[in-house]
């Protein structure tokens, strides 16, 4: 190898190194600008604005999420989120095949009530659906749910005219005492596939997947499908008392999780 070629090789190497350095420095600059803009409250409101547009484009109507054949069911329905509740009452119910557990329906309704698992099975027409669960993280699993349609349970309680939202108060917490909760508007709550499930893949729902009763909303991302539901509250608005309508919504995620 002649010295000249060696030096041009070194030059090329140096040029390539400099180009890499320059581009990663430029990207780092973008990342830094993006980070500080994210932390600017006024800019963040602009970033948040498309959610209303998404809801306007996709939120009307009630198209059905695809339903699958049995063979499409995932071998394991992946668990995400908090650990199952571990309080004495929950463990006691679990040991007694959920005897003692009741699902409450409260709020702006003419007939508040509560249901045992057997009530949910026998007093409402069961709906079975094999649907895909899309986690906000990016993965998907397919499972077979059986349960009562949310709209039937709400109708039974006779919502008052001012009812606009349904809040799901859950029994699991994030380890610091903050409990999970979620919400849907009345239109979303009346979707035929919004189901209060008590079975997953023809078995009682395992604790990790939301025992004894969980919501499944296959037309939105997984965090809308609240697990371990204890109480359904019908309200006129989400307002300050209810945060932004969900545990993850309070942490910056979209209330409308359709995309």
């Amino acid at each position: 190898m002649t010295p000249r070629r060696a030096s041009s090789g070194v030059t090329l190497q140096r040029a390539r190194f400099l180009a890499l350095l320059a581009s990663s420095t430029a990207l780092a600059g973008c990342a830094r600008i993006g980070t500080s803009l994210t932390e600017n409250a006024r800019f963040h409101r602009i970033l948040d604005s498309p959610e209303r547009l998404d809801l306007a484009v996709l939120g009307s109507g009630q198209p059905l999420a695809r339903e699958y054949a049995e063979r499409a069911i995932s071998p394991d329905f992946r668990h995400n989120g908090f650990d199952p509740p571990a309080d004495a009452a929950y463990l006691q119910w679990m040991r007694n095949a959920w005897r003692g557990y009741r699902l409450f329906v409260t709020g702006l309704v003419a007939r508040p009530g509560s249901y045992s698992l057997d009530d949910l099975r026998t007093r409402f027409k069961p709906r079975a659906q094999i649907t895909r669960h899309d986690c906000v993280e990016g993965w998907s699993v397919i499972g077979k749910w059986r349960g009562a349609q949310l709209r039937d349970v709400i109708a039974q309680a006779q919502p008052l005219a001012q009812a606009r939202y349904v809040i799901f108060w859950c029994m699991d917490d994030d380890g610091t005492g903050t409990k999970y909760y979620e919400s849907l508007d009345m239109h979303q709550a009346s979707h035929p596939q919004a189901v209060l499930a008590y079975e997953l893949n023809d078995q009682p729902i395992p604790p990790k997947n939301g025992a004894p009763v969980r919501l499944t909303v296959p037309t939105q991302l997984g965090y809308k499908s609240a697990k371990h539901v204890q109480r359904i509250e019908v309200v006129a608005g989400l307002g300050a008392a209810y945060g932004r309508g969900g545990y993850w919504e309070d942490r910056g995620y979209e209330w409308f999780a359709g995309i």
Partner: protein
Amino acid sequence: MKGRIYRHPLAVRVTHWIVALALLVLTMSGLQIFMAHPALYASDASTFDKPVLSIYADAGAAGQPVGRLQVGSHVVTTTHVLGWTSDGFGGENSRAFPAWATIPAYRDLADGRRWHIFFAWVLIACALVYGYWALRLIPKGRELRELPSAVLRHMLPWRVKAESSYNPLQKTAYFTVVFVLVPIAVISGLALGPSVDSWAPWLPALLGGRQFARIWHFAAMFAIIGFFVTHVAMVAATGLWNNLRAMITGWFSPPKGAS
């Protein structure tokens, strides 16, 4: 100045720069989103034990943290770049991509999604404005016939000269980005939304399933990055200031003797 030609109309110049910004933000916020579950599956639901690609942190021979990239049955060590890399706080952590490549720099799925969805709308708005001018990128029969010779000329890219009008290879490259790569990115991105899928169940099916749509989305991003690098190199090689000025003011100085 004498001899200059008006090459790019205002709408093209404005959308060019907004799209450039949008693609940059979409890439960096997309990497942020991908970090939440850095794995791809060639199916509808995730087959967790058989990812096509995954990035993860692992323990090295001495127990030290290392980053790994797995593609099919091949695993390569990518410590400091992928899997175990800079966390945006001065240290390293279990992260698929380095902090300098993501928006926000630190790990934040919620805000990554806000950026991504905002700029997805920006991209669509630009596509609506630019659509009319994009039609000029459709190669004519003559240009397609001249394509092989243009490819041959580009074997020595540094000897390629700027011309007053796009050469056939250049035009085909722009056409591919505008009519193939960006549409694939948009369509596969839409297919990731569970609500979009309920409106258009054929969309994920067309792409091989929802998880497969992530592969299309990722592949389109890589192809667009590839175009970007080539584009910037060719802009620099064929008269950086002349090309830049043309895309800012619209006016381009054709090289002497050029047609």
